[in-house]
């Protein structure tokens, strides 16, 4: 039987067995609608409240500031469009970075069509946003700044504390997309100094289809989903109790195991990186060498297109992602790597290895073993690798 090694934990994760266990009763006997006042409803409401408290505890804030959504994308959309629509009388200018997730970028593009102006901050070669650059872009009519916590393609951690401080000084809302940092590094909304923060369950061993938006008290925000009075009338829709309970459980586990997992993953990633660099020439790391979440390692294999690497690894049972193009169904190279100044061919040659709970030393050793052969075979086929050698 073929070995299966999953190195794509930044795309999604399996639910943790304890998370699954926690969800089961809410599919079965405790299935009530949290809006109902009878026993079934009250049981659901209790589960909802307890979940909210758990999430609030993890983020170091008040349960009243925790809103459940259908995922990271919805949280991002609600943060960006919700605050934009609610505050357009104050101004129509938004600042974000050029390396945000598409959920942010596309929300901003939509707002541009609606008459808003958006500045996309440049980043340095490591993918870092420059606080001075942010300061320069701020205008009288700036209403929102959104800079992600950790990038999903190469893991760089942005200086959110510093950036949010600038926002606070100037009285502008600050949002951060923490979808990729949760479970990897501490997230304390007070320390981070943010007004809004997005999470998604399925990136840290919780279920798909459920997310969180932290909204600091006092932030004005127009709902995207209108209807019943769920989530204090800011996000209508019958609450996905099993999903919410699962997300809360996943947060509990992340908190409990963070330290141990973090160092384990860091060792795995370093071990893999060292072996690859020893065995394969012309490999370049994308992202910041230290300031990044430990589970993401993004490497460009000069002269070889990403999808062809993915497919070859897939044939060996290894799952990775690429900054090339195919994941999104589009055919443009990664906007993140491009923004960092990575040349197009190297952007097309990038592979994201993202490690997680199931991965062992044997796993990464196996990948480091089969990879050199694959790269060498593809490079023999490449019209641009030879060119660069001559």
């Amino acid at each position, binding site marked *: 039987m073929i070995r299966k090694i999953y190195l794509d934990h930044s795309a999604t994760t399996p639910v943790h067995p304890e998370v699954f266990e926690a969800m089961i009763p809410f599919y079965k006997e405790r299935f009530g609608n949290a809006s109902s006042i009878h026993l079934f409803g009250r049981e659901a409401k209790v589960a909802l409240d307890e979940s909210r408290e758990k999430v609030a505890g993890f983020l170091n804030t008040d349960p009243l500031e925790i809103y459940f959504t259908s995922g990271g994308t919805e949280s991002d959309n609600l943060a960006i469009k919700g605050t934009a629509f609610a505050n357009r009388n104050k101004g129509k200018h938004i600042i974000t970075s050029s390396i945000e997730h598409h959920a942010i970028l596309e929300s901003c593009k939509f707002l541009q069509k609606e008459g808003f102006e958006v500045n996309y901050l440049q980043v340095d070669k490591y993918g870092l946003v420059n606080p001075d650059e942010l300061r320069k872009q701020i205008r009288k009519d700036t209403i929102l700044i959104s800079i992600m916590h950790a990038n999903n393609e190469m893991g760089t951690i942005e200086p959110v504390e510093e950036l949010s401080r600038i926002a606070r000084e100037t009285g502008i809302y600050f949002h951060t997309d923490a979808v990729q940092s949760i479970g990897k590094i501490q997230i304390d909304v007070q320390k981070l100094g943010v007004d809004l923060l997005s999470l998604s369950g399925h990136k840290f061993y919780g279920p798909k289809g459920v997310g969180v938006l932290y909204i600091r008290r006092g932030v004005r925000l127009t709902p995207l989903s209108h209807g019943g009075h769920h989530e204090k009338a800011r996000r209508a829709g019958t609450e996905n109790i099993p999903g919410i309970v699962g997300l809360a459980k996943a947060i509990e586990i992340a908190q409990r195991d963070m330290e141990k997992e973090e160092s384990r993953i860091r060792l795995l990633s370093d071990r893999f990186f060292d072996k690859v660099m020893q065995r394969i020439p012309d490999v370049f790391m994308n992202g910041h060498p230290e300031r990044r979440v430990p589970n993401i390692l993004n490497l460009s294999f000069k*002269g*070889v*297109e*990403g*999808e*062809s690497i993915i*497919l070859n690894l897939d*044939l060996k049972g290894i799952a990775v992602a690429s900054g*090339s*193009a*195919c994941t999104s*169904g589009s*055919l*443009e*190279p990664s906007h993140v790597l491009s923004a960092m100044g990575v040349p*197009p*061919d190297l*952007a*097309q040659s990038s592979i994201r290895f993202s490690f997680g709970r199931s991965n062992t030393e044997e796993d990464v050793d196996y990948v480091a073993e089969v990879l050199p052969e694959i790269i060498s075979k593809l490079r*023999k*086929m*490449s*019209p*641009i*690798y*030879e060119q660069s050698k001559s």
Partner: protein
Amino acid sequence: MPYSTKVMEHFQNPRNVGEIENPDGVGEIGNPVCGDIMKLYIRVKDNRVVDAKFKTFGCGAAIATSSMITELVKNKTLEEALKISRQTVAEALDGLPANKMHCSNLAADALHKAIEDYKNKKKKPESVSKRDE
């Protein structure tokens, strides 16, 4: 990304990888947007393509179409070879995913360029060899 068995077979065991020394025609085609770059070499004898080789930087579809076209073109007359279209290649591979039909299906274009190159060389050998310097 559901590639057909045939695509995967050609992707795993591509035919005619490499270069032809002193080729009679070379077609290079590159698409910086989608990142596929393809170089097709042909050897022509008596108006027939007697050999073809390729080098490709690109995704599964790009590699498979390159491989497939070098098979398809062999022993075809130049007229027959020019009739090979993107569609022909895609069909010979039992189809390609919709989002791969454009960017990663450049082999026919590279072939046509190689034949053009061959014809140009034959017409005006001087100017071509000058260009090569």
